């Protein structure tokens, strides 16, 4: 493989390598200037093949993207190349809500510890932990903040991982039969998401399951514990 690794430049530029081969080749790319030059030229060539497929998208695409971009923070210029989990998480930590991220990390640490002891409650925790890891390690993770009357919340989500995690605190205990519900706002229209109850301390970390479609804001209301199709209660957490 190493003898003819240069010949992978074509397949690499066409995204035709497996993930493992891609990692290998990228390690080679970092030290091989001629491959770097060749890949750049191949990418430009492939881009022309792609541009030849020009097709007008549905008009809804423009509105959706421009609305999402309003609430999507941009990556910082220099963090590429640093690599690793830390570099990827950092942009999320920087702007605000560092304490919420801390809470999330602490709670996920608790989850990890508990998992080793309590096999019978693994499933829900495992789902939550996997969602956390998927989102926290995704290079494209974004954070949407919420606030309301002493309460704080945020949703971390990643388009590539197609999942997200809700973290909130300062939530009051609710009467039986009632629960908090998260809403994902798309073009100003709320789509129902997770229904949850906070811990006795008023905190919640909730895996949001599969989220295939982007959204531009999030909010939380109090609803029937079985969940609602449309929000009926007041927003206890509104987009910040």
């Amino acid at each position: 493989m190493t003898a003819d690794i240069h010949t992978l430049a074509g397949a690499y530029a066409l995204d035709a390598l497996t993930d493992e081969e891609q990692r290998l080749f990228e390690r080679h790319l970092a030290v091989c200037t001629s491959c770097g030059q060749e890949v750049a030229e191949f990418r430009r060539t492939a881009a022309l093949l792609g541009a030849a497929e020009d097709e007008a998208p549905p008009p809804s695409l423009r509105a959706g993207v421009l609305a999402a971009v309003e609430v999507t923070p941009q990556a910082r210029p220099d963090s590429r190349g640093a690599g690793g989990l830390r570099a990827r998480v950092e942009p999320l930590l920087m702007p605000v809500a560092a304490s919420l991220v801390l809470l999330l990390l602490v709670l996920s640490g608790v989850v990890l510890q508990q998992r080793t002891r309590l096999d019978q409650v693994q499933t829900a925790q495992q789902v939550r932990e996997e969602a956390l890891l998927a989102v926290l390690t995704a290079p494209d993770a974004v954070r949407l903040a919420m606030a309301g009357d002493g309460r704080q919340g945020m949703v971390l989500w990643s388009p590539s991982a197609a999942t997200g995690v809700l973290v909130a605190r300062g939530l009051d205990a609710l009467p039986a039969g009632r629960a908090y519900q998260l809403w994902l706002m798309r073009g100003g229209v709320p789509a129902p998401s997770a229904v949850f109850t906070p811990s006795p301390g008023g905190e919640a970390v909730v895996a949001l399951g599969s989220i295939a479609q982007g959204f531009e804001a999030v909010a939380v209301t109090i609803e029937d514990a079985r969940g609602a199709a449309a929000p009926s209660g007041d927003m206890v957490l509104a987009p910040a």
Partner: protein
Amino acid sequence: MGQVVRRRAERAGLRALPGGAAPDADALLRRSARGDHAAFAELFDLVVGSVYGLIRRVLRDPAQSEEVAQEVMIEVWRLAPRFDAKRGGARSWIMTIAHRRAVDRVRSEQSARMRDDRAAVAAHQRPADVVAEEVESRMEQARVRTALATLTDLQREAVELAYYGGHTYREVAELLDAPLGTVKTRMRDGLIRLRDELGVGE
């Protein structure tokens, strides 16, 4: 919500460009990288046809294509500050992101597609015609078609199955019933030929 409206209003005043020159993708991406929403909207209009068209070609399904195109354009906004013009132009950077995303999506539905494509390859061994049908007569597109026509059959099939079909070279080898090493080198040879034909590089 009010914030969004305010920002939109601010944006309206930012559209005028000195001299009225049409900005290119590179300039718009650099301005987007500084948080300029108006520039990003212009960039969107400039590249979205290519982005959506490519994704559509790879994924075929219009709803999925729109979803992935949306992810790609948001990613372009998010990663704009990391765009490095020294490593290639803005269009090439954006199309690379679009292709990668489309391929990631298609690979999650791989086995069904392998069957489809094997049938397609067997039915007509002339993928260039498929391209010819779909590519319109615009100059750039005509150039691509002409360039593709200069490739050998195996080079063209290897490049097209990988790029438009989203297949790994191993899958392409299987589809074309050709040795792995051959497919790997044909992809590279094909791209070298296309690069020279299309005048990329110098």
